[in-house]
């Protein structure tokens, strides 16, 4: 059987993937997009081809901006493969993926990884209880199903998405008991020196302030400097209360749904599995692939754009996708170096403007230590149920990195393959050893990055 060939294969159909696809095909490149989701949009524009909610004011105009990206991509005539999980890529850029239980393979001249972000794991006591979920999850339920969480509802965490989802739920008429802001004291001072950069993106800054005002006006209880979160179960094991501390006292709120959020981090599962070079981002407290200014990784021909290259948001992702696609077209001789520089100057400036606000946001919303290096009793690996204390005692016994603690405790060995414990485990080890996280490293991720069935493997063997 002949393997279909493409000039450019893009993994992920969020803002970076969609805009890259559109730009690349405008240069006459043959483009395929492999998307894990059932429809384009990524997480930020999830279900944008058929939004569930009738009232468009609930999610707001930023969400529906995705329609423009989607129609441009459709018009460009890109081969779009939905529900396709990539599980390995060879050094010759043969890409193996499974779709509806069947495995297939395509070949690319250039590969663009645009797999976006995942929410940062938020370990605290009781975070595994039924009823606790991420703010991102609640937003996905809104976008693709029009479902709103069961009350009483509490939101807890830090960062712009916390405020956004609170405002969206409030617009939808959902009652919110309280918002617990876990941003530690002193962050305003710390972030203030980055304010000049932030002012370069005034609209975004004002949007954030606008959300705060909207929530205050709605009369929602807003609790600052909340610490030591503890979710408590009822006698059937379901979430029933949330305990927290403030300066003055320890308080308890009734809640059946708790939405948590501590920012997002690049989804590095695939870039790790492909053994691209990564670096530790101290301000964002996460790993990201090491890239040149056009997004090309340590492996020639493999590019990364959008939030999977470092968190910068949806608009930045859109611009990065375009710039990277232009560069790829130039490498494939569709345009000259001069034309490349000319054609990318404006988008480059727009991208810089988007990126200028990041240091301010990152300094302001860096998670509190209790979420980065949780207390001993807190589960860090949800799959294998390993606590922070177990990791610490393994370090005391001589484990120096996540792959060793994995071998001894199984932390990182469950179905999520470390997606929800990798950062925490590395940070605990670094903290115990008093060394930088970059020295401790990350799990060795092996392919397939998604569990495969024997049937899917057999397809390929044929």
């Amino acid at each position, binding site marked *: 059987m002949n393997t279909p060939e493409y000039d450019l294969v893009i993994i992920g159909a969020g803002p970076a993937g969609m805009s890259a696809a559109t730009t690349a095909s405008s240069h006459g490149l043959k483009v395929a997009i492999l998307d894990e989701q059932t429809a384009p949009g990524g997480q930020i524009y999830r279900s944008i081809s058929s939004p569930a909610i009738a009232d468009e004011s609930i999610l707001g105009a930023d969400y529906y901006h995705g329609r423009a990206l989607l129609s441009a991509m459709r018009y460009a005539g890109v081969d779009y493969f939905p529900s396709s999980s990539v599980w390995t890529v060879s050094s010759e850029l043969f890409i193996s993926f499974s779709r509806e239980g069947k495995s297939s393979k395509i070949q690319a001249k250039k590969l663009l990884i645009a797999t976006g972000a995942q929410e940062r794991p938020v370990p605290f006591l009781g975070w595994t209880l039924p*009823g606790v979920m991420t703010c991102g999850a609640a937003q996905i339920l809104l976008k693709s199903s029009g479902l709103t969480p*069961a009350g009483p509802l509490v939101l807890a965490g830090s960062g712009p998405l916390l405020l956004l989802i609170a405002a969206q739920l409030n617009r939808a008429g959902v009652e919110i008991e309280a918002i617990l802001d876990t941003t530690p004291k002193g962050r305003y001072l710390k972030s203030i020196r980055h304010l000049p950069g932030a002012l370069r993106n005034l609209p975004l800054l004002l949007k954030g302030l606008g959300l705060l005002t909207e929530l205050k006006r709605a009369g929602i209880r807003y609790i600052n400097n909340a610490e030591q979160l503890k979710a408590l179960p009822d006698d059937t094991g379901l979430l029933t209360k949330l305990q927290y501390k403030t300066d003055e006292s320890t308080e308890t709120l009734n809640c059946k749904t708790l939405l948590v959020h501590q920012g997002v981090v690049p989804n590095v599962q695939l870039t790790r599995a492909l053994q691209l070079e990564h670096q530790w981002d101290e301000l964002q407290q996460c790993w990201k692939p090491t890239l040149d200014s056009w997004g090309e990784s340590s492996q020639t021909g493999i590019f990364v754009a959008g939030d999977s290259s470092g968190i910068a948001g949806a608009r930045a992702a859109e611009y990065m996708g375009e710039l990277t696609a232009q560069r790829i077209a130039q490498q494939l001789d569709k345009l000259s170096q001069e034309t490349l520089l000319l054609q990318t100057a404006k988008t480059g400036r727009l991208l810089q403007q988007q990126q200028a606000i990041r240091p301010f946001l990152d300094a302001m919303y860096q998670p509190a230590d209790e979420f980065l290096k949780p207390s001993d009793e807190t589960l860090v690996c949800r*799959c294998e149920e390993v606590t922070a204390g177990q990791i610490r005692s393994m370090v005391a016994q001589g484990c120096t990195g996540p792959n060793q603690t994995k071998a001894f405790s199984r932390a990182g060995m469950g179905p999520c*393959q470390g997606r929800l414990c990798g950062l925490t485990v590395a940070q605990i080890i670094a903290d115990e050893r008093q060394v930088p996280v970059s020295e401790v490293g990350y799990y060795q991720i092996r392919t*397939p990055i998604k569990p495969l069935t024997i049937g899917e493997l057999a397809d390929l063997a044929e």
Partner: protein
Amino acid sequence: MPNALPFERLPTNNAEWVTVYIEGQPVKVRQGDSAAAAVLAAGLQPSRTTVVSGSGRTPYCLMGVCFECLLQIDGVENVQGCMTPAREGMQIMSQKQARQLNDSNPSTLKPDDLKNSHIKKEGTVV
């Protein structure tokens, strides 16, 4: 049996509605809902129990990251519910003590199995 407070549905754009069976009970869900969303809409909590301690879990991220949404769907164990669209007649059951995907469940494989599989040795996988 659905037992917890269900998630509520806002007025939605027109779409087909399909009937799925959650622990045997018929539930109408919107086309475009995932199996995990269906479980939340029906109020089934927990939707799985862990293999280590048997503690209850429900879908956590809904974007394919956490694997807390493992369900038994149409008789197949350990299906990632948030990545599986609801379909007419789908039988959804909570996943009890989900085994490791590579233990004693011949239908799924993980990296360690692949490493040892003959298919890899024949060089057709990578």
